[in-house]
């Protein structure tokens, strides 16, 4: 009864004009699944941001050696662990040889003899209150050497020279580190060249008598050093260097490492190694996985059973431990160790996809029309697994970079002098507290790259997911 009432009567239909007027059309341009995914990917701000970062990174890696043609392996003893700088200027200063220093000292003795010779102390008198006086500079101080002289103190057996870095001026009473013990002489002097750097330094002298009693420290002497460099070192930086002139040093936009090598050049070199491992390992693993998983899925039966048994064991192996084992004992490079262990995931993925797909109607139809296994695989099965595989590879890349960095960090990286970002981190962390840039820059590169690939992978997965299609 209800069926008839629900059926429209012929009179209820109206005739529409044909072809339909444009306003009556309800069409959308037809898009393939890939076009659709691409459109949605472009709308994702995170994906676009990550992709641009990775693009910039590709330029950095490929064009880097051309734009920044500095040898990443060239050390410079004059510029160890330097903070990032662009075209710093230093004065070229003369380096004191022991002979010149000794000559200068004897000259002083004859030139400025003390105004009034202090009375000789009575025998048995202990070193009394007066501290060593008249602490002053001899000649012009520079970062290669600071020459000090002070008035001899009667009764002193030796003097200890202390030095404190400039900021210690704030903390009174801080003598700093003892530099040397100077034996008593009519004109005591000392030349300091121990790890001097530009900036203010504070010198003071304490006298001791033969019993080891100490006098109070002398009036501190403040020395302000400007950046300087020895002529020999300066010539390697700038061929025009002359003594006493200001020269511009080579720029190190990211500073230098503890061997004085340019960090930017090393980061570019490291990018080549880290990224080539990060990209090659997943891709090679994917191809092996495609072959093995494809065969297992396509042939099924015994082949499938055995392949799955093997992958079961591989999956159960602790990945990093075996990677360590392979590298330590067989000396396999990181790339090989990674590939040898990471083909399992793609293999299982491909097998699962193919098992799912091969029962579907379009594959059955193709088989009915006489398609062979190769045709089926290349024409129907693989193109339909491509989306899933693409997402898997995008997530495998940061994983590989991460793993390589981990292995390098614990000392299993590429052989020096080559360096990946992970080995740079490993080198940098030793001096992290004094020069953090050596660690932070490679760490930033690793984190940024892994972050971008992860974000891109997330976006790609969402874009390729048909369940999310049509939602914004």
């Amino acid at each position, binding site marked *: 009864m209800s069926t008839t009432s629900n059926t429209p009567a012929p009179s209820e239909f109206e005739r529409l004009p044909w072809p339909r007027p444009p306003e009556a059309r309800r069409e959308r341009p037809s898009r393939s699944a890939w076009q659709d995914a691409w459109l949605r990917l472009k709308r994702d701000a995170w994906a676009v941001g990550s992709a641009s970062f990775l693009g910039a990174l590709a330029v950095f890696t490929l064009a880097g050696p051309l734009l920044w043609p500095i040898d990443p392996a060239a050390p410079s003893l004059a510029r160890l662990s330097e903070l990032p700088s662009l075209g710093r200027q230093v004065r070229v200063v003369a380096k004191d040889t022991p002979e010149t220093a000794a000559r200068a000292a004897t000259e002083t003795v004859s030139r400025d003899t003390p105004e009034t010779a202090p009375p000789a102390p009575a025998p048995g008198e202990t070193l009394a209150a007066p501290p060593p006086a008249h602490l002053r500079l001899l000649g012009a101080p520079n970062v290669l050497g600071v020459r000090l002289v002070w008035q001899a103190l009667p009764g002193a057996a030796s003097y200890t020279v202390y030095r404190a870095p400039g900021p210690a001026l704030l903390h009174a009473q801080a003598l700093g580190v003892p530099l040397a013990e100077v034996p008593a002489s009519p004109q005591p002097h000392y030349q300091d060249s121990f790890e001097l750097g530009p900036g203010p330094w504070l010198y003071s002298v304490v006298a001791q008598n033969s019993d080891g009693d100490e006098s109070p420290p002398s009036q501190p002497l403040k020395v302000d050093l400007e950046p300087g460099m020895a002529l020999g070192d300066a010539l390697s930086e700038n061929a025009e260097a002359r003594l006493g002139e200001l020269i511009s040093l080579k720029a190190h936009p990211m500073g230098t490492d503890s061997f004085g090598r340019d960090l930017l050049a090393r980061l570019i070199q490291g990018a080549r190694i880290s990224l080539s491992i990060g990209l090659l390992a997943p891709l090679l693993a994917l191809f092996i996985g495609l072959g093995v998983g494809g065969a297992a899925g396509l042939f099924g039966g015994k082949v499938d059973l055995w392949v799955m048994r093997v992958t079961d064991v591989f999956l159960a192996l602790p990945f990093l431990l075996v990677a360590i084992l392979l590298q330590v004992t067989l000396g396999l490079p990181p790339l090989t160790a990674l590939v040898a262990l990471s083909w399992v995931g793609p293999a299982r993925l491909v097998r699962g996809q193919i098992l799912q797909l091969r029962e579907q109607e379009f594959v059955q139809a193709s088989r009915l029309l006489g398609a062979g296994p190769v045709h089926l695989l290349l024409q129907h099965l693989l193109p339909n697994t491509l989306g899933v595989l693409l997402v898997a590879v995008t997530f495998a890349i940061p994983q590989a970079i991460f793993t390589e960095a*981990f292995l390098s960090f614990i000392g299993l990286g590429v052989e020096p002098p080559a360096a990946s970002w992970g080995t740079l981190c490993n080198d940098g962390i030793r001096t992290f507290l004094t020069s953090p840039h050596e660690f932070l820059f490679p760490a930033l590169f690793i984190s940024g790259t892994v*972050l971008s690939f992860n974000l891109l992978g997330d976006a790609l997965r969402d874009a390729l997911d048909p369940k999310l299609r049509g939602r914004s």
Partner: protein
Amino acid sequence: MNGFFRYFLKRLALGVLTVFVLATATFTALHLIPGDPLLSEKEQTPELRASLMKQYHLDQPPLVQYGYFLKDLSRGEFGISFTQPNRKVNDIIRDHFPVSATLGLLAISLAATGGILLGSFSALRRGQALDRATLFWVILGVSVPNFVIAACLQLAISEFNQKTGTEWLPVGGWGSFHHRILPAIVLALGTQAFLTRLMRSSLLEVVHQDYVRTARAKGLSPLRIFFVHQLKNAVLPVLTYLGPSIASVTTGGFVVESVFAIPGLGRYFVQAIQQLDYTVILGLTVFYGSFLVLMVLAVDLLYGLVDPRISLEGRTR
């Protein structure tokens, strides 16, 4: 129960097989290393050397040696360190593993509670600021290597300690409970991020299930719905991941213990790698490997018991 028993046997067999493969790989590796294992013995007479060879079964063909190796292994004997004479690998494990285990346990519990809490909050507040912040945190947590987090945290805290003159949070060493806080946090972060993401997506799937709607229709309080109906079901995937996350916390320990100067087994392992102390590397690999395989197995079996719906066949990880 029969199904569970079959699954149990299958998993056990796979676990034993895995350890066996690992041990065999280790033995092969040990024999591929160039060099003479007795070279470190000084002033050898031919007689002494022969007796040593006999003692270590080095005069036997490789297959027989392999048999002895497996026999030693089954008794838990891993040999003697190359670089520290007279120190057995077993002693190293006994001395240093408890430290790593304490740290690892703390990290795992931090990661699990943090992940479940943060994941639940972000799923319940989906699309809001908290959720977005959590998602960013998660992606950051899985993208920044733990040695970077460790070093930066160390720098920041030591700077802070210097400024304020406090020493409540030491940045290295081992001893009091305070020493465990920073390394445990660093160790937990990556895993915590992953578990947060897992918890969030699994709770999102549960939130709109029919039984949740029914519970709401019955007038149950939101808290009761959350704890009894949603959390209980959503937490299961997080539990499965606990097995693998024990592995990631263990290997993470290699780095964290080195950075924080903690006398754990992980730091020892890294030192052995850097000094090429082969017996220690191989012994610890087998030890860690068996430990991890056992843990994953235990977690998977527990999971099979906890979730009655699970079809035990076909799950292999």
